[in-house]
C-alpha cells in the first residue's frame, strides 16, 4: 500500500470507530453536533478542500463538489430538522472514501499483476572481462558485444549464439511451455530464459531494439488506442454528471413549487433530501474505471498467452471478427519443405533418401535442404564426387562409385530414363541410379498440424468466411484449402495482388489478415486487423501488425478471438450493470424509496462488483 492509501485507511478506520462510539454514547445538543462534525472532517476534509478549490476555479461538476454538497446538505437538513441524526452525512462520505480506496487498490493490484505477468525485463547482462563475469546494464551493451547467459538467466539482448547449446524457455514470450533447443549459429531472442547450458551470444541489436524492449513498449502502450466502449463511456460521463445535477436541482425546486401552487404544503426538506440523494449517485468514476480496467486486464491476459494486442480497439474488433484471410506459406503451412512421400522405389526408402541427400549435399536450395533434413545425418562428402548441377533440372553426382541422377522429369527425359508421374502435389524429385529409374521423392510444404482444427474452431466461433491467399500455384493451393476446409482460395498472387484481394473483401464485417509478417506488411496495414504470426523477434511484423501472435500455431488466433470475446462480454456486463443500477437508484431516489444510505451503497457496491468483474478478464488461460 502506498502512503496515501495507508493514511486513507487510517482515516476510514478512525471515522468508523468514532461514528460507532458517538452512537453508543448519548450525546446531545451542540456537543453532539461538534462531535459528529469532527468525524465528518476526519473522513471528508480532503473532499471539502478539493471542492472549495474547484469552485474557485469555476469547476462545479466534479465529484468532490457533488459529494461535498450532498453531505453538507444532509448535515444542514439534520440541523434544520433538529433530528440530531448526522450519521447519514458521515456514512455517505465514509463509504465514498472506502470505494475510492478500494478502487485505487484494485487498479494498483492489476497494474502490478500485469507487469508481473509480462515480467520480461532483464535486469543485467553478463560480459566476460579477464576471465570474470561482470554484470552490466543491458542498455549499455553495444552491438556486437559477446554476452554470457548462464542457466536460469534471461537472455537480455537479441543476438546470435556463438558458443554452447541449451534449451530455452520461451513461455514469457509465447505462452508455449515446450522448451526450444538452441545451438551455435542460431538466433537467440531476448526475454527467453536459458534453462540448461551456458550460452555465449554475440548481440545483433541494442537493448532498446531487442524483442523484449519492443514487446514491453507495446504492452505498456496498448491502452492508448481506445476502444469504442471506452469512448462511449467517457462521452457518457461528460454528459451524465451535469444531467444528474440539473435533475437534482429540478427535484429540489419544482415539486415544492408545484405543491405550493396547488395549495399544499411545500415539503421543502423532503425534496431537498431526495435531490441530495441524486447527487450521491452522480459520480461517474465507478462507471469510468471498470471499462479501461477490463480492457487492460484482457490485454494483459492475452499477453501472458503469447498474444500481443496493440490496443483495446483491436480487442474490440477481434471480438466482432467475420472474415479471416490467411496467407498460406508460413501461416497455415510450415513454410519449410519436408519429404512427404516416397513412391515407386526399387531400393529401401532410407537408401533412396541417402543417395538423394548425398547428391544434394552441396546444395543450398530449399528442396535440397529438405532432403538433407530427411536424411538426418551429416552427409559424408568423401563418398560424393563429380557433382554437376544442371540448372532448372537437377543434379548429377557420383556416390559410392554409382552415377546418381536426382531431379525433375526434364532431367530424366534428358538422360533418356523412363519415369513415373506422381499424383501428389508438391515438388517431385526423381532418382536414377546408374541409368535405372529408382523411384521419386515428394517434397512439399507441410500443413501445420493444427491448421485444420484452427479453421474448424473459427467456424464454430461464428466466423463467416475463411479465405486463403497465396503466391503458390493453383494445384498446391487448392489441395491445402481442401484439406483445411477453407472457403475461398486465390492463388498465384503477387504481394500487390494480395492487397487488392483484401480490399475487395473488406466491407463485409470485420476482416483480419493473418500472415507470418514477412513480405506482407502492406496487407497487414490495409486490413481491419493485421495479425502477424510467429513473430518472435521479427521487428517488421511487430511494427506493422495490430495483433502479434508470438508463436507459429494458428490455434493462437482462435484463442485470441476467445479472449477478446470474454473481455468484451465483461465490458458490456459492466456498462449495463452500472447503468441499470444507477438509473434504478435515481428513480427510487426521486420517489423517496431509496434514501442516501441506499444510494451510497449502490454507488460503491456497483463499483466494487464492476472492478472485480473487470479483473476476471485477466483469467484467460483455460479458454
Amino acid at each position, binding site marked *: 500500500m502506498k502512503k496515501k492509501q495507508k493514511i486513507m485507511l487510517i482515516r476510514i478506520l478512525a471515522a468508523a470507530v468514532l461514528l460507532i462510539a458517538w452512537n453508543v454514547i448519548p450525546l446531545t445538543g451542540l456537543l453532539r453536533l461538534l462531535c459528529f462534525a469532527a468525524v465528518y472532517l476526519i473522513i471528508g476534509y480532503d473532499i471539502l478542500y478539493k471542492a472549495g478549490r474547484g469552485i474557485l476555479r469555476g469547476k462545479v461538476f466534479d465529484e468532490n463538489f457533488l459529494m461535498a454538497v450532498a453531505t453538507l446538505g444532509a448535515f444542514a437538513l439534520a440541523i434544520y430538522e433538529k433530528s440530531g441524526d448526522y450519521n447519514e452525512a458521515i456514512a455517505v462520505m465514509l463509504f465514498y472514501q472506502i470505494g475510492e480506496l478500494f478502487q485505487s487498490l484494485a487498479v494498483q493490484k492489476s*497494474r502490478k499483476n500485469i507487469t508481473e505477468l509480462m515480467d520480461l525485463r532483464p535486469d543485467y547482462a553478463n560480459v566476460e572481462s579477464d576471465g570474470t563475469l561482470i554484470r552490466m546494464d543491458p542498455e549499455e551493451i553495444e552491438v556486437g558485444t559477446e554476452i554470457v547467459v548462464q542457466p536460469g538467466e534471461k537472455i537480455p539482448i537479441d543476438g546470435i549464439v556463438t558458443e554452447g547449446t541449451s534449451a530455452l524457455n520461451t513461455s514469457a514470450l509465447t505462452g508455449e511451455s515446450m522448451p526450444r533447443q538452441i545451438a551455435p549459429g542460431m538466433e537467440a531472442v531476448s526475454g527467453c530464459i536459458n534453462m540448461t547450458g551456458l550460452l555465449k551470444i554475440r548481440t545483433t541489436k541494442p537493448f532498446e531494439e531487442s524483442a523484449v524492449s519492443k514487446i514491453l513498449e507495446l504492452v505498456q502502450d496498448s491502452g492508448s488506442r481506445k476502444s469504442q466502449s471506452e469512448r462511449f463511456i467517457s462521452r457518457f460521463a461528460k454528459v451524465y454528471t451535469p444531467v444528474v445535477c440539473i435533475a437534482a436541482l429540478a427535484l429540489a425546486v419544482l415539486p415544492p413549487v408545484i405543491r405550493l401552487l396547488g395549495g399544499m404544503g411545500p415539503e421543502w426538506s423532503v425534496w431537498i433530501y431526495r435531490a441530495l440523494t441524486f447527487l450521491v449517485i452522480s459520480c461517474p468514476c465507478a462507471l469510468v474505471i471498470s471499462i479501461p480496467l477490463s480492457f487492460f486486464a484482457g490485454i494483459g491476459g492475452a499477453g501472458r498467452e503469447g498474444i500481443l494486442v496493440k490496443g483495446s480497439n483491436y480487442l474490440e474488433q477481434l471480438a466482432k471478427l467475420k472474415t479471416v484471410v490467411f496467407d498460406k506459406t508460413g501461416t497455415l503451412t510450415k513454410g519449410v519443405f519436408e519429404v512427404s512421400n516416397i513412391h515407386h522405389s526399387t531400393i529401401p526408402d532410407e537408401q533412396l533418401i541417402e543417395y538423394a541427400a548425398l547428391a544434394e549435399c552441396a546444395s543450398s536450395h530449399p528442396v535440397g535442404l529438405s532432403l538433407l533434413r530427411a536424411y538426418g545425418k551429416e552427409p559424408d562428402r568423401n563418398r560424393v564426387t563429380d557433382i554437376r548441377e544442371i540448372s532448372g533440372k537437377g543434379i548429377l553426382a557420383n556416390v559410392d562409385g554409382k552415377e546418381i541422377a536426382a531431379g525433375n522429369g526434364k532431367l530424366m527425359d534428358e538422360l533418356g530414363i523412363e519415369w513415373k508421374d506422381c499424383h501428389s502435389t508438391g515438388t517431385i524429385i526423381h532418382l536414377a541410379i546408374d541409368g535405372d529409374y529408382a523411384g521419386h521423392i515428394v517434397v512439399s510444404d507441410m500443413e501445420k498440424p493444427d491448421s485444420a482444427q484452427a479453421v474448424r474452431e473459427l467456424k464454430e466461433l461464428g466466423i463467416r468466411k475463411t479465405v486463403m491467399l497465396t503466391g503458390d500455384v493453383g494445384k498446391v493451393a487448392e489441395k491445402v484449402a481442401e484439406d483445411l476446409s477453407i472457403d475461398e482460395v486465390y492463388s498465384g498472387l503477387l504481394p500487390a495482388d494480395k492487397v487488392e484481394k483484401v480490399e475487395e473483401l473488406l466491407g463485409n464485417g470485420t476482416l483480419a489478415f493473418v500472415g507470418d509478417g514477412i513480405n506482407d506488411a502492406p496487407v497487414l496495414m490495409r486490413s481491419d486487423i493485421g495479425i502477424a504470426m510467429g513473430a518472435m523477434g521479427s521487428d517488421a511484423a511487430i511494427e506493422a501488425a495490430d495483433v502479434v501472435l508470438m508463436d507459429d500455431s494458428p490455434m493462437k488466433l482462435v484463442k485470441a478471438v476467445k479472449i477478446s470475446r470474454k473481455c468484451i462480454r465483461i465490458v458490456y456486463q459492466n456498462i449495463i450493470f452500472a447503468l441499470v443500477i444507477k438509473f434504478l437508484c435515481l428513480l427510487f431516489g426521486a420517489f423517496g424509496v431509496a434514501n442516501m444510505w441506499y444510494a451510497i451503497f449502490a454507488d460503491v457496491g456497483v463499483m466494487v462488483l464492476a472492478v472485480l468483474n473487470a479483473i476476471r478478464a485477466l483469467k484467460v488461460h483455460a479458454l
Partner: protein
Amino acid sequence: MKQKYNIEVDCANCANLMEEAAGKVKGVKEVSVNFMALRMTVEFEEGYDPAAVMKEVRKACRKAEPDCDIEL
C-alpha cells in the same frame, strides 16, 4: 513527432479530463492518456518545441485536474 510521458493521476475520469485539457493546448496534434499504464502519448504539430508545449500541457492538465502530474 510522438513522445511519451509518465503521469501521476488517481482516477480514470480525471485521466479523461487530462486528455481533454491537453488536447486543447496549441502545438498538440493528438494526445492519448492511458490511465492503466499511467502514460500520456503526445503527438506534436510541426514546428513546435515539445518541451515548451509540454509545459503548457502540464499547466492545462493541472487546471483541469489539480491532483495530477506529468513527468517532463
